[in-house]
């Protein structure tokens, strides 16, 4: 019998390839310091992966690089090495490894890390993302959606609601690079996003809706802070969204067949 290639690591590698435009653009914008930070966070996550591999026989994954990339781009600035290690350790252990590794987790470990860093060290300023990073996120999203490793419905759902929100409040348009980067790196993670087709639309729409809500009501907050908070809240709601959609499907089917 023949076997296909779409196992966990293939998906992780495809996501990594799709993220290359973001990674390269970010390196060009931030210089060697960014490379060093990425290596540091990757090493930190890698050590935890190694510990869990030896203790629990959990195979490590290439997805470690995706998590590290999202953390170093979106993490608050001016954090010391210890603070970063603390945040990354908490995020990777409680967000991913405790569930059994990438593929079994329900929250994106980078989202958990960023939420912890945001709540734990409120004095650290959130970064302002360069606009070219937003442009780089467009090919990343298109490549990932083309290969089917990211839900196109989720991206479209977010796009439609964000466009509607911009039509109501034009000031929201300034946030688009941040909203897009967080969408691609955190919200669209295939493991932590909705797995049902309708759920993916709701997932994307809810994210853009939260961003618009925070922009309208949360005075003095940074763009990245709003987007990461929206991503975190949405990821908490995703299992509920999927469950509701499946229940609706079952009810609709029962009605149709009775």
């Amino acid at each position: 019998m023949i076997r296909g290639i779409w196992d966990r690591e293939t998906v992780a590698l495809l996501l990594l390839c799709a993220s290359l435009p973001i990674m390269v653009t970010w390196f060009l914008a931030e210089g060697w310091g960014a490379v060093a930070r990425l290596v540091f966070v990757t090493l930190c996550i890698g050590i935890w992966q190694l510990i869990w591999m030896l203790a629990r026989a959990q195979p490590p994954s290439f997805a470690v690089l995706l998590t590290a990339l999202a953390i170093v781009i979106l993490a608050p600035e001016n954090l010391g090495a210890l603070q970063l290690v603390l945040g990354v350790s908490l995020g990777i252990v409680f967000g991913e490894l405790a569930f059994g590794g990438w593929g079994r987790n329900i929250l994106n470990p980078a989202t958990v890390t960023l939420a912890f860093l945001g709540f734990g060290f409120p004095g650290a300023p959130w970064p302002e993302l360069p606009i070219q990073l937003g442009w780089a996120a467009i090919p990343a999203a298109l490549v990932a959606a083309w290969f089917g490793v990211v839900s196109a419905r989720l991206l479209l759902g977010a796009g439609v609601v964000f466009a509607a929100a911009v039509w109501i409040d034009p000031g929201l348009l300034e946030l688009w690079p941040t909203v897009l980067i967080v969408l691609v790196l955190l919200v669209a993670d295939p493991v932590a996003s909705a797995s049902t087709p309708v759920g993916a639309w709701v997932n994307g729409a809810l994210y853009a809706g939260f961003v618009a809500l925070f922009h309208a009501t949360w005075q003095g907050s940074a763009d990245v802070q709003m987007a990461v908070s929206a991503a975190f809240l949405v990821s908490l709601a995703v299992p509920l969204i999927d469950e509701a959609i499946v229940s609706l499907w079952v009810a609709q089917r029962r009605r149709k067949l009775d």
Partner: protein
Amino acid sequence: MLWNRQTGLTVDVRGPVPAAHVPVEHNITEEAALSASADDDLRVTMLVDEDQLVAQGAPIFRLRHHPDIVQVAPMAGRVAVVDLAPGRRLSEIRFFHENDGDRHQYAPNAAHKSGDALRLLLMESGLWLALRSRPFGRAPLPGEEPAAIFIAGLDTKPLAPNPALSVKGREEDVARGIAQLLRLTHGPVYLCQAGDAGEGFAEFAPNDRIRRLKVAPVHPWGLPGFLVHQHHPATLSRPVWDIHLEDVAAIGALFATGLVPQTRLISFAGPAVTDARLLRCQPGADLRSLCYGRVTHGPHIALSGSPLEGRARRWLGARDRQVSVMNAGASDQRDHWLVSALKQASRPRPIIPTAAIERALGGALPALALLRALAVGDRETATRLGALSLVGEDLTLADYVTCAAPRHSALLDNMLREIAKEEAS
């Protein structure tokens, strides 16, 4: 509608493809066998002895728990070996071909009189075993009445022969067969055909219970499971049967001539084949004989079935209409011991939701929810999502796409077996 699109995937299998316009070759192999695996748990009462001459279509054994159901000889010949496992479980009954052998004649006239007589004729002639009942994917019980019957008039498995070719020129047999199927149920009979097929055979037996389904010719929609799931889901109290179009023609031919067909149309293809063709051979044909002179040099494996779900075996399976010959070299490469140990420890392997998985289940149901329910053995959720309409072969495309270990098709079969056992007790 939350899910209503018929999507699927095209699996690109390397190697020559059987051309529909090339004349079909008849190939009755010198040996053939009726075989069963341990999982089938087929307990039988033999009706013949070793070294006995049998006619084609003559009764060979009865099922021990349902003595009315009979299996017949796939060809005229001598019974060479009867291999039964403890408990009279069928392992293998092998036949040697005799050129001047007879064909067993049945008397179909009595079957016109009543439904019971029709059932009895189908059971005695072995054609009852061509029917498959859902839930559980086994031959129907003798007294079972289906809520609907699906006729598989298309097959979208990679390299599969087109069922319409197998009944070319036998339209009257098909019409006669459909008329008999209508007598087996009070529900509808669905004739499933490719969307681009013509009007088909239903006009020969006009009846308002015949429903023609035009199906997108994309895998997995050519499998009856997804069509049953979509149009007439099977439940424990409302079983649904399915049958291949060629077997419907066989029922029609039985009523016309009293004879059981000698051959079935199969495709012989795969990456290790030099000459992919459509063949007509007997059920249980010898795959080694079929491969002789038609495969490339080097190690190869002959699968009974499609490349997705076929099993390496000597004899053509009871429901199989494909022989897929694969290169054997690649499977010899082994992982490093640590990688192998980690893979083993992380079973069931995590499934990452992708568009490919959704397509592998045809867009017909919440794919990830079903696969996760199977992986953790959650029978209640799997049943709620429609698992009772499916059988293992319906999930082989998902297995192919996800490289799942253990395979979801095996998990579904095990789950159905457990449900059946509970229902029986």
